[in-house]
C-alpha cells in the first residue's frame, strides 16, 4: 500500500472495494439452487454454472428448468390463484409492503449479489437498481390497496408467466412481480440464465415474509425453459428481452387467448440541439450509453447532434470518455463494470467491427482493462451514417454512434428512421423546441434534458418493434387486469365471393347502384376489377367491390397521407364526429330501411348516431395524466394515437359494428383502413357518402370490402400499419396475432359480441398508446 506521502504525489483514488463476504458465505451455504415452487425450494436438478462476469469464476450452480418443472410451477400458481385474488386489496397490500420493507432491509446484500452476478458497478446496483425495485413494491402495495376502487369491473388474468432479461435482474423482477401481485395474479417467473441469483434471493424473501405458497414461483433455466413457460397453461405472458424473441413469443401465443405484453429492444435517439447545455448533454451520454455497460434497452445509443455544435460536442464527449473508470464492479470508484457474459462481449465486438468496416471511426480511451473477465472499453462511433449496421442494430454495449443533423425536422426524421421506438432523449434549453420534438418522436418514453429516468409511477414501454404494453403506474396495472368478457354472439355464415354473374339471385333495385371502395376520400374501383354478389335470402341487394392486396396497399398509403388528423384538436375531431351523427340522423330512416332489407336490426341506425355522439363527446376528454414521480420533474403521460390502424369489422351488425370500432379509433386521431362486414358491406359503403358530407378529411377512413380474413392478413402483415383490431373467427384471430409479429404491431382480437353496449374507455385506451415525457425543471 502506498504511503500518504506517495499518494500526495499522484492524488490517485485508490481501491474502495465493497465487501462481498456476506454474499459469498450465502452462496456457499446454499450450494446448488433448485427452483422456488409452491413456497419452497425444490431439489436441484440438472444444473449449469452462473459466473461472475468480472472474473469468470463460478458463483453458483443453477437448475435448468424442464417442461415438467414449468408445469408443476404453473399448477402451484393456479392452485394459489383463487385465494390470492380473493384476498382484500388491503391484505395483498400488506404482503407487498412487507416485500418492499424486506428488500430495503436486505438492500446491501442484494446490491452486492447483483453486482457479482451481473457485473454492473456497485454504484448502480446500490443507487439505482435496488432502490428502484424497492420503490416499485411500495408503489404497488398502494395499487393493491386501491385496485377495487380504482379499477372497478376489472379482474386479474389469473396465472402470469413472466420472463425477464439479465441487464437489470432484480429491477425487472420487481417491474413484473409487483403489478401482477397487486392486481391479484399469481406468477411463474423465469429469470435470465446469466443472472438468476437475485431472483432466488427474492424467493427467500417471499418465504421470509410468509407470502402464501404458490403466489410467486421462480423457475430458472435458459431459453428452452422460457419457451416452455410461454407454451404452458398460463393466462398472460409478460416478456422483457430482445425483439427477436419477442416476435417468437408473439407467434407462439397467437390464438391462445393469452394476454401479452412485450418490452423489447431499442436504438434510441439522443438528440442534441445547438442551444443545449453541452456539458450537461455530455453527462447525459454518460448516463445513457455508459450506464450498465450500455446493456440498456432504452439506452441513448444513437447520438444525433446539430452540425452547429457537432465538433465541440464530440471533443467534449471524447475528453469525458477518458475520465471513465472501467474495472472491478465491486469497487465504489468504478463507472463501468463487466459485460454480462463472454457471448455478449463477442456480439459487441462483432457489431463494433461491422460499424468500423462500414466506415465509422471508433473513439475509445486508453484504458487498461482487467486481465480477466468480460470487459469492453466505452466507445463512440463517429461518422456512423444511418446506413451503417452500427446505427441500425442494437449493440447492447457501451458504444454509441454519433451522426449530425442540420435542422430540427431532419433530427426528427433521423430519430424516427428506425424499426424501434422505445425512448428518446432531447437536449435543448428551448422548451418550445424540446416539446415540439417530444411530440414528434416515435418513442414510448421521452426524456427532455435528462436520460434514463425511471419511477414506479411512470409508464415505461415502447412503440413499434420495441413492443407494446406499459410497466409502471396506472397503465402498468391495466396490463395485469382484464375487463370481463362481453356477451358473445355467433359469427354469421360464410360469404360467397364468386365474381361471376349470378342470375339465380336477381336484383331488386330500381336504379342500379354501384358501391365502390373508399380510399383517400375517393370512391375507387377495386384493383381486381371484380365485384361479388351481396344477397339476402336469395335476393341480390347489389354488387360489392372485391378488394384485394393492392387496394389495402393503396388504402394504407392514403391513410398515411392524412397525418394531419392526429394533430387536430380533440374539439375539431369532435366537430366532425358530431357532423357525421347529424348527417346520419338525416338519413336514419334510409339506413334503417337498408338494414331491414339486409335482414339486420334497423335499430342499428339510431344506435350508430348515438355512438357517433358518444365518441364526439370523448374526443376532447380522454386525457393523459401528470405522474407523481420525483421532485422537480414534470412527468406527463400523453395518450397518442397509433397512427394508421387496420380494422376488420364483425360480419354481424354491419353498421353498428363498423361504427363501434372505427369511431373510437378516429376520435383518438388514428386513420383507419377498415374491412366492413364481408357479407353486408353495403351499409359501410353507404356511409362514405355521409363521411363525404361531414368534413371528414380524405384518408382518415378508408373502406376496402371483400374477404375479411384475406384482407386482414394483408393488414396484419403490413409493416406500415401500427395497430390492428380484428373481430371474427378463431382462425382469423390466431392469424392476425401471428401475422402481427412482423412489425410487432399491437393487435386486439375479439369475438363477435353484443354491439349495443360496445363503447367506452376500453376502446379508447386500445386506440391509443401512452407516451411518457419527463421534464426536469429548476433555475
Amino acid at each position, binding site marked *: *500500500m502506498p504511503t500518504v506521502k506517495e*499518494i500526495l504525489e499522484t492524488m490517485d483514488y*485508490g*481501491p474502495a472495494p465493497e465487501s462481498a463476504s456476506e454474499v459469498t458465505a450465502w452462496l456457499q451455504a446454499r450450494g446448488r439452487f433448485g427452483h422456488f415452487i409452491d413456497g419452497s425450494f425444490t431439489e436441484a436438478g440438472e444444473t449449469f454454472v452462473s459466473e461472475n462476469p468480472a472474473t469468470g469464476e463460478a458463483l453458483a450452480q443453477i437448475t435448468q428448468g424442464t417442461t415438467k418443472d414449468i408445469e408443476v410451477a404453473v399448477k402451484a400458481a393456479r392452485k394459489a390463484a383463487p385465494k390470492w385474488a380473493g384476498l382484500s386489496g388491503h391484505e395483498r397490500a400488506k404482503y407487498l409492503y412487507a416485500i418492499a420493507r424486506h428488500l430495503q432491509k436486505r438492500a446491501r446484500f442484494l446490491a452486492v449479489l447483483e453486482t457479482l452476478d451481473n457485473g454492473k458497478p456497485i454504484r448502480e446496483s446500490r443507487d439505482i437498481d435496488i432502490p428502484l425495485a424497492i420503490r416499485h413494491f411500495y408503489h404497488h402495495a398502494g395499487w393493491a390497496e386501491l385496485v377495487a376502487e380504482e379499477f372497478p369491473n376489472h379482474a386479474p388474468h389469473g396465472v402470469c408467466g413472466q420472463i425477464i432479461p439479465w441487464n437489470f435482474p432484480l429491477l425487472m423482477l420487481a417491474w413484473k412481480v409487483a403489478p401482477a401481485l397487486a392486481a391479484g395474479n399469481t406468477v411463474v417467473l423465469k429469470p435470465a440464465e446469466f443472472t438468476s441469483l437475485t431472483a432466488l434471493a427474492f424467493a427467500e424473501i417471499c418465504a421470509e415474509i410468509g407470502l402464501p405458497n404458490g403466489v410467486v414461483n421462480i423457475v430458472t433455466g435458459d431459453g428452452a425453459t422460457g419457451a416452455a413457460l410461454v407454451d404452458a397453461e398460463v393466462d398472460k405472458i409478460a416478456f422483457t428481452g430482445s425483439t427477436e424473441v419477442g416476435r417468437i413469443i408473439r407467434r407462439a401465443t397467437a390464438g391462445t387467448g393469452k394476454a401479452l405484453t412485450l418490452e423489447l429492444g431499442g436504438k434510441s435517439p439522443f438528440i442534441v440541439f445547438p442551444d443545449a447545455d453541452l456539458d450537461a448533454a455530455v453527462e447525459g451520454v454518460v448516463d445513457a450509453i455508459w450506464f450498465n455497460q450500455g446493456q440498456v434497452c432504452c439506452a441513448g445509443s444513437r447520438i444525433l447532434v446539430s452540425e452547429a455544435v457537432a465538433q465541440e460536442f464530440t471533443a467534449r464527449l471524447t475528453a469525458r470518455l477518458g475520465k471513465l473508470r472501467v474495472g472491478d464492479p465491486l469497487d465504489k470508484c468504478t*463507472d463501468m463494470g463487466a459485460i454480462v457474459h463472454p457471448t455478449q462481449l463477442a456480439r459487441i465486438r462483432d457489431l463494433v467491427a461491422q460499424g468500423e468496416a462500414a466506415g465509422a471511426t471508433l473513439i475509445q480511451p486508453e484504458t487498461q482493462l482487467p486481465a480477466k473477465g468480460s470487459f469492453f472499453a466505452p466507445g463512440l462511433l463517429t461518422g456512423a451514417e444511418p446506413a451503417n449496421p452500427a446505427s441500425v442494430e442494437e449493440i447492447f454495449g457501451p458504444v454509441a454512434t454519433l451522426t449530425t443533423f442540420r435542422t430540427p425536422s431532419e433530427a426528427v426524421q433521423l430519430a424516427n428512421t428506425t424499426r424501434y421506438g422505445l425512448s428518446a432523449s432531447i437536449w435543448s434549453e428551448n422548451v418550445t423546441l424540446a416539446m415540439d420534438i417530444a411530440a414528434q418522436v416515435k418513442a414510448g418514453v421521452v426524456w427532455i434534458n435528462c436520460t434514463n429516468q425511471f419511477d414506479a409511477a411512470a409508464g415505461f414501454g415502447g412503440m413499434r418493434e420495441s413492443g407494446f404494453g406499459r410497466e409502471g403506474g396506472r397503465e402498468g396495472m391495466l396490463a395485469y387486469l382484464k375487463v370481463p368478457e362481453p356477451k358473445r354472439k355467433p359469427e354469421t355464415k360464410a360469404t360467397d365471393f364468386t365474381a361471376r354473374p349470378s342470375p339465380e339471385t336477381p336484383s331488386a333495385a330500381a336504379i342500379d347502384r354501384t358501391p365502390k371502395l373508399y380510399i383517400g376520400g375517393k370512391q375507387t374501383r377495386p384493383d381486381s376489377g371484380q365485384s361479388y354478389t351481396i344477397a339476402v335470402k336469395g335476393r341480390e341487394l347489389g354488387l360489392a367491390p372485391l378488394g384485394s392486396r393492392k387496394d389495402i396497399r393503396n388504402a394504407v398509403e392514403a391513410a398515411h397521407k392524412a397525418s394531419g388528423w392526429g394533430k387536430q384538436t380533440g374539439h375539431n375531431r369532435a366537430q366532425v364526429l358530431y357532423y357525421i351523427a347529424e348527417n346520419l340522423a338525416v338519413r336514419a330512416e334510409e339506413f334503417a330501411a337498408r338494414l331491414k332489407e339486409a335482414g339486420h336490426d334497423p335499430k342499428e341506425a339510431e344506435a350508430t348516431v348515438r355512438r357517433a355522439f358518444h365518441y364526439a363527446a370523448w374526443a376532447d376528454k380522454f386525457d393523459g395524466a401528470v405522474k407523481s414521480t420525483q421532485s422537480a*420533474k414534470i412527468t406527463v403521460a400523453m395518450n397518442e394515437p397509433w397512427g394508421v390502424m387496420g380494422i376488420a369489422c364483425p360480419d354481424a351488425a354491419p353498421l353498428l359494428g363498423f361504427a363501434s370500432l372505427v369511431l373510437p379509433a378516429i376520435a383518438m386521431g388514428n386513420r383507419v383502413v377498415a374491412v366492413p362486414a364481408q357479407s353486408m358491406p353495403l351499409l359501410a359503403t353507404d356511409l362514405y357518402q355521409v363521411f363525404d358530407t361531414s368534413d371528414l378529411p380524405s384518408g382518415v377512413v378508408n373502406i376496402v370490402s371483400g374477404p375479411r380474413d384475406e384482407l386482414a392478413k394483408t393488414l396484419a402483415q403490413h409493416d406500415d400499419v401500427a395497430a390492428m383490431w380484428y373481430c371474427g373467427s378463431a382462425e382469423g384471430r390466431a392469424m392476425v396475432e401471428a401475422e402481427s409479429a412482423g412489425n410487432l404491431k399491437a393487435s386486439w382480437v375479439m369475438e363477435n359480441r353484443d354491439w349495443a353496449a360496445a363503447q367506452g374507455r376500453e376502446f379508447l385506451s386500445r386506440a391509443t398508446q401512452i407516451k411518457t415525457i419527463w421534464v426536469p425543471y429548476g433555475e
Partner: protein
Amino acid sequence: MASPTSHPSVPRNPGMPLNLSWFDRIAVNTPAAQNRAAQLTTRRSLKKEWQAAWLVNAIRCIDLTTLAGDDTEARVARLCAKAKRPLADHILDGLGLDHVQTGAVCVYPTMVRAAVRALDGTGIPVASVATGFPAGLMPMNLRLAEILYAVEEGAAEIDIVITRAHVLEGNWQALYDEIAAMREACGDAHLKAILATGELGSLRNVYKASMVAMQAGADFIKTSTGKEGVNATLPVSLTMVRALREYGARTGYKIGFKPAGGLKTAKDALAWQILMREEMGTEWLQPHLFRIGASSLLGDIERQLEHHVTGRYASSSRHALA
C-alpha cells in the same frame, strides 16, 4: 513576496478585451448540473490511506480564514499559528509526514500586517479581502485604495468582491471595467474574484460573471464571501469550473478556483477535490490552482485524520484552536 498561487509552469492570466460572444448565449441547465454534482460523490470514494492523503491535501489548499468584526491582532496570530502547524505532531507522525501547512491565511486589510508578521519565514502567503468586502458597495476610488493599502501592508493575494448589480443588470462592460481596474491595482498580488454566487440568481449568471472576471484578468475565481445566504455549493462550483476550463481551452491560461463558505466537513473537502479532479485533473488539486476558503473545516479534517492514525474517534478539545 512571491505568491504560491504563482507557479513556474503557470504563466499568469493577463486578461483580454471583453468578449461577450464567449458567454452571452451560454446554456446552463440547473437540474442537470445538480444531477452531475450529486453523482460526483457517488461515483468516487476514498478509503484508508487515500482518504487520509486527500484530507492532507485539502489542508494544503485551505485559505485559513478569519473575517469577523471582533478580529484582533492576537486572534490573527493564533490563526497563523494554526496555519503553520495545522496538525498535531502525533497525527503528522502517524501519517508519515514531516510538515504540512495551509495554502494561505485570509484576513481583513487591517489585519494583514499582523498576519504577515506572524507568518514570517513560513512562506505562507497572506490573502486579504478588499474592495468593501463583503457587499462591495463602496465608491470605486475607495475600493481601489483598499487594494493598494492591503498590498502595501504585505498581502500577496487580494480577494475582491464584485458589484452584484452589474451582473443582475447584465452590465458586463461595467463588471469587466471594475475587475480590470482592481487587477491593475493589485500589481503583483494575485486577484481572486469573489462572485457572491448566492446573490446572482442563476447558474447562467454564475457562468457569465466567471467568464467576465477571467477576461478582466482574475487569477482565481471564488464562489462566495461566506456572508451570503447561500455560499459554495457543488452545482455552482461545477458551473464555475466549467467556465474556467473553457477559458483555459480558449486562451491557454490556467485559472484557479476557490470555493468558500459552506465547506465545513472532511466529507465536503473530499467532494470538492473530486469535483476538481474529475472536471479538471490533478493539477487543479494543487494550491496554485485550488484553494478552499474555510475556518471550521480544518478542525473536522484534523479529527478525521486523528481517527485514521489512532483508530479512535477524536475530540476537538485535544486539538489546538485556530
